[in-house]
């Protein structure tokens, strides 16, 4: 028995020792540590905070926030964080409750969506009181989010208020320009042809803001599968309105939208898959879409090109 245990131990030991390269979550310096949840929030915080803060974004590009699983390094980052900034409106689910509770001790906590007027939020007809959290594809809402971040960072570092204000000002100008670009591109399509069919309902606010009729195949929750009747109704809708393209999304599986394409084909109409849209996160550097602005531009280009 003892001999066998010894063998067991010698086999386990190397596993414990191996991989000694520990990823440090924040650099060692005097700047405050800020944790952002999604890549979109991270980009926003980066634009306002610049190099005055140490920033760590928990979720990587292309990760569905509902499916996010923390790594060991994330724990250290959370521990060292002076401030946690998240999207809110239940996008991060249960994590939000935890963040809010942490506010009672030593951490500052901020939901970028906190100042957005609840009346502007999309309520779900079936379940009132529960709002659509995908606020970022309406530039005006993202501008409000930028204000909230600016305010939050100023509370964190009052001494850098001037820098944050300057950063905010220039970023708001960039966002205005983005807004103009999105509107300009949208106008290339006649109003009645502005129909966006995607894999899940992440584009509600986009539709409101830029006059698109948005049809999602499945609900807000990426965990629920699309129902067969939803599928049939949507296929009929596509045929009736002669929709040219439907779109897949980076953080949800392609297969449901491809099933939709087949359903449309069965009715003798051919709908293209117009490309991939970013829904819950930014793209990555390899695609040149690692910022919010680039991500949104890529989306609107994909949509407009697909529908033209």
């Amino acid at each position, binding site marked *: 028995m003892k001999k066998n245990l010894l063998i067991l131990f010698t086999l386990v030991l190397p596993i*414990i020792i191996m991989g000694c390269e520990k990823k440090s979550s924040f650099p060692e310096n005097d700047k405050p540590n800020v944790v952002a949840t999604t890549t979109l929030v991270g980009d926003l915080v980066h634009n306002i905070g610049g190099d005055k803060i140490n920033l760590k974004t928990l979720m990587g590009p292309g990760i569905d926030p509902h499916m996010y699983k923390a*790594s060991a390094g994330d724990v250290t980052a959370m521990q060292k964080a002076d401030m946690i900034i998240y999207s809110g409106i239940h996008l991060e689910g*249960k994590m939000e409750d935890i963040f809010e*509770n942490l506010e009672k001790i030593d951490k500052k906590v901020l939901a970028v969506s906190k100042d957005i007027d609840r009346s502007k939020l999309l309520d779900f007809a079936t379940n009132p009181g529960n709002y659509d959290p995908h606020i970022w594809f309406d530039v005006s809402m993202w501008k409000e989010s930028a204000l909230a971040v600016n305010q939050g960072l100023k509370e964190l570092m009052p001494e850098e208020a001037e820098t944050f204000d300057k950063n905010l000002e220039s970023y708001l100008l960039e966002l205005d320009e983005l807004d103009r670009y999105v509107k300009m591109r949208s106008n290339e399509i006649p109003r009645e042809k502005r129909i966006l069919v995607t894999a899940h309902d992440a584009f509600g606010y986009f539709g409101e803001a830029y006059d698109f009729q948005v049809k999602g195949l499945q*609900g807000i929750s990426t*965990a629920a599968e699309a129902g067969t009747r939803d599928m049939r109704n949507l296929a009929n809708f596509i045929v009736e309105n002669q929709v040219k393209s439907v779109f897949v999304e980076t953080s949800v599986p392609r297969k449901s939208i491809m099933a939709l394409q087949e359903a449309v084909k069965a009715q003798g109409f051919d709908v293209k898959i117009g490309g991939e849209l970013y829904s819950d996160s930014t793209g990555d550097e390899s695609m040149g879409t690692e910022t919010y602005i680039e991500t949104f531009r890529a989306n609107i280009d994909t949509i407009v090109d697909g529908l033209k």
Partner: protein
Amino acid sequence: MNPELEIQMIAVIVAVASSLPGVFLVLRRMAMMTDAITHTILLGIVIAFFITGSLTSPLLVVGAAIMGLLTVFLTEVLNNTNLMSKDSAIGIVFPLLFSIAIILISKYAGSVHLDTDSVLLGQIEFAPFDRIIIGGKDFGPRAIYMMGTILVINLVFVVAFFKELKIVTFDPALAAVLGITPTLIHYMLMGVVSVTAVGAFEAVGSILVIAFMVGPPVTAYLLTDDLKKMIVFSSIIGALNGVIGFNIAMQADVSIAGTMAVVTGITFGLVFIFAPKKGLITTMNRRRVQKKQFAANSLLFHILNHEREDDVDYHNSISNIEVNLNWHKGYLDKIIDSLMDNKQIIIENNIIYLTDEGREYSIKSYEDIVGSLKGAYLS
């Protein structure tokens, strides 16, 4: 606040709390139950959501706990009909309740982000940040209190009902005759399983519920023949898996829960291979020894049967035995060598003779085998 230490504390508490009922679950061959519960609680969450209309209501967790109890209740009811095996009973209840939940979500709550993860935290990585803070004072992670309470309940339950749990798990019919109602104990055990599973789900997530409740008991089962020791070993193994898993995850910056589950699997695998009595190596060795022993006996019987015949020179010559028993020359030589070492045979002129010792042994083992055969024929 030291999340590294707290995560390991939570892991140890969950591991021990899960091991206690987990051992009996494994011995009842109902390990699948944990998997079922971690899925069916979704239905409890969905129904509680329809009642409260809110995703943040604490009633959703209550709904989850009730559904866990309902799952074990339905399984026990099906089980008690004796119409199907325990596994089949779980296999019916689990998909039924889970799919009702999915249908309800897609029909009535399609647009709301409603799934188990949105109600139960289910991430050990975040457990140290889910703290109890009253009046600005930090009392530590909620999970430690919650799972600590469950640990105490489980400990009291197993200690108080150890004897009853033992007999209803081993021999429910006798228990019933003795007046120890197996149904009652089973419902109590499964209730404890359900509460532990839901609590552990909230504290550490679904993967770890299964990993902690099933992995360590199965591993401990290979290491001991004593129920008490099995529970103790299981708790220790579970705690070690948690601590080792955490440290590897920190080094490699990967999912803590995932690493703990992987370590659970590795520990089991190592024990499965190296366990002193029930391990693969020991078992294979034992089989080889038994096979050789049996072969040696066959050879002895052969020689015994023929030693009084006239043509003993022919029958008991090595070359003829090789043909008759149809063994490889090398294998035969090995058996002969070991018998000679035992001084049970001697060889003269290539003919095998039994020694007196060998003859005595052969006759005795022959009678043993025939004796036990007679018993078998009687039945």
